[in-house]
């Protein structure tokens, strides 16, 4: 597939999947919390697309798309989200705390920024064993208030670790606006305090994200250390599907919707001379089929048995 079209396919797949998960949640088919990444698709596609299979990513709760772009099976992902036996964790945890090691996806916890030290550990292994691999850790601007963020960046800077810290700055930590979270405008500024560069880009511009990422990944693979990439973006939904986001204005949402990363990309396709209308329609059909299939698979997958909650605790049971 032409790369321009493949990228478009990824963007649309992520959106279709996110959108369907929200709908299924509202229909009561997905229990627990759902944290939509609608509006942030260019960040996950742009950061993960160029990675190699043995690179590690550490996605957070709003990075469902990162799983898909890293090559995780959409059927299994949907089963995971529904808490079914066929999910990665076999129903043992909800949504995105799970990971898929053979795809290089390490699941996080709900304690935000807690995966940043873990990413440093993985990157330290790559460095010690002289493997040209990178670790990519995602976090929101909200997570940059936690100690784990600072401990991790400090350590990564000291050892020039092959780790890329991707900040998805969507301006709200649940309901708390950035101005109440920090006295600075750019989270990227914090990197300077740890001895490496912080780059700011539009998280709704796929190419801006990809360029920043390519630079950071090449630098890391050459052994020249970490980088922080701050992607300014916006989530269309509330913090979770339970959240009506009364703390922000309709005008603000509209302003961001007018900068939609997918429409922006469609404009690019058109300007480049593609038959955009045809590609949009065809891609829409393809991603719908993939997600339909995932839903069908997940819905027909059995629930785990209660006693399976006792399994998977230890690799070496005593």
């Amino acid at each position, binding site marked *: 597939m032409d790369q321009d079209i493949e990228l478009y396919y990824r963007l649309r797949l992520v959106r279709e999947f996110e959108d369907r998960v929200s709908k299924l949640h509202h229909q009561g088919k997905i229990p627990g919390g759902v944290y939509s990444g609608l509006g942030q698709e260019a960040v996950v596609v742009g950061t993960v697309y160029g990675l190699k299979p043995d690179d590690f990513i550490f996605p957070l709760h709003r990075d469902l798309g990162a799983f898909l772009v890293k090559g995780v099976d959409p059927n299994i992902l949907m089963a995971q989200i529904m808490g079914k036996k066929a999910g990665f964790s076999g129903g043992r945890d909800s949504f995105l705390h799970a990971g898929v090691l053979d795809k290089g996806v390490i699941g996080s916890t709900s304690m935000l920024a*807690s995966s940043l030290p873990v990413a440093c550990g993985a990157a330290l*292994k790559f460095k010690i064993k002289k493997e040209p691999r990178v670790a990519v850790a995602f976090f929101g601007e909200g997570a940059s208030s936690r100690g784990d963020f600072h401990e991790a960046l400090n350590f990564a800077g000291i050892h020039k670790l092959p780790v890329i810290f991707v900040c998805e700055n969507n301006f709200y930590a649940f309901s708390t606006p950035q101005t109440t979270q920090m006295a600075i405008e750019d989270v990227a500024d914090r990197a300077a305090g740890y001895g490496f560069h912080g780059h700011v880009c539009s998280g709704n511009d796929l190419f801006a994200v990809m360029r920043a990422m390519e630079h950071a990944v090449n630098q890391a693979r050459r052994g020249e250390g970490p980088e922080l990439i701050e992607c300014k973006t916006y989530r269309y939904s509330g913090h979770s599907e339970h959240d009506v986001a009364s703390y922000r204005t309709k005008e603000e949402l509209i302003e961001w919707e007018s900068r939609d990363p997918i429409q922006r990309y469609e404009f690019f396709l058109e300007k480049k001379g593609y038959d955009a209308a045809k590609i949009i329609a065809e891609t829409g059909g393809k991603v719908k089929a993939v997600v339909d299939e995932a839903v069908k698979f997940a819905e027909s997958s059995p629930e785990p048995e209660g006693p399976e909650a006792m399994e998977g605790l230890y690799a070496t049971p*005593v």
Partner: protein
Amino acid sequence: MELTYIKAINNALRQAMRLDSDVILLGEDIGALGGAFLATEGLLNEFGPERVIDTPISESLINGAAVGLAVAGMRPVAEMQFADFIACGFDQLVNMAATLRYRHGGGAKCPMVVRCPSGSGVRGGLFHSQNPEAWFARVPGLKVVAPATAFDAKGLLIAAIQDDDPVIYFEHKFLYRRIKEDVPEDSYIVPIGKAALRREGGDICFITYGSALYHCLAAADELEKEGVSSEVLDLRTLLPLDKRAIIECARKTGKVLIVHEDRVTGGIGGEVSAIIMENAFEYLDAPVMRLGAKDTHNAFAGPMEEYILPNKEKVLQAARKLAGY
């Protein structure tokens, strides 16, 4: 060869690192200094700075990086400079490390060890004396060990390093240079999850671990002279507990005194007592008794520390009461 408890730890680390190049150490001041207690003395020289990594004062980073190293295929051994500081790295252990395998598919594993110099009796005050093992001994996914002898210090540490799950290893500071015994030169393991019977007897039973073992053994010698025969069970592993050994002791003697240096309230003793009540109630001739530190902070002044901690005299006093039933 004769080794102190701390030298046995050093010896275990050196052997594990020689046998497996994936074993690496990280912690505060463990390199050139060799650790606050010299547990890692000489290891930087032998293995270099890529395998003996001095970290900033960042306990959450240390534990979190250990998880990342483990997931990526290494066998990290992290050091908390004092067990007390583990509170700063708590989340990475109970939420990240302990759940890693559970929430990942495909047989993910997290082979890591966190060494924690713990314990009182060294005039360490509030923040250099703690016994935080009970915080972890109820977390599924973790294993918790607490050796009392130099032999076990080496064998349990090697077992912990070879184990594919996260193991919190509590080493007792008071024992570091006070215990010396013959330890095999070769690498060996003491199995995780197995208690050790340190003394056989029929009248009463002490169930203990860590430095409190020695108060129990000393008390048992005294009691012998008084005509009371005591059994002493050293738990060695606190998660999972060796239930079979605990139940066996209780059934055999019918009188159990649980002794640990950690505080009584919420300590391991409560759990051991419940195991006995649920599995050996009909065999008991007396209520299960507990002796531990008093429910206060680890006060600094000598008379206060003395007052708070269990010792041989306090064990004897409790044991005589128990034997009298």
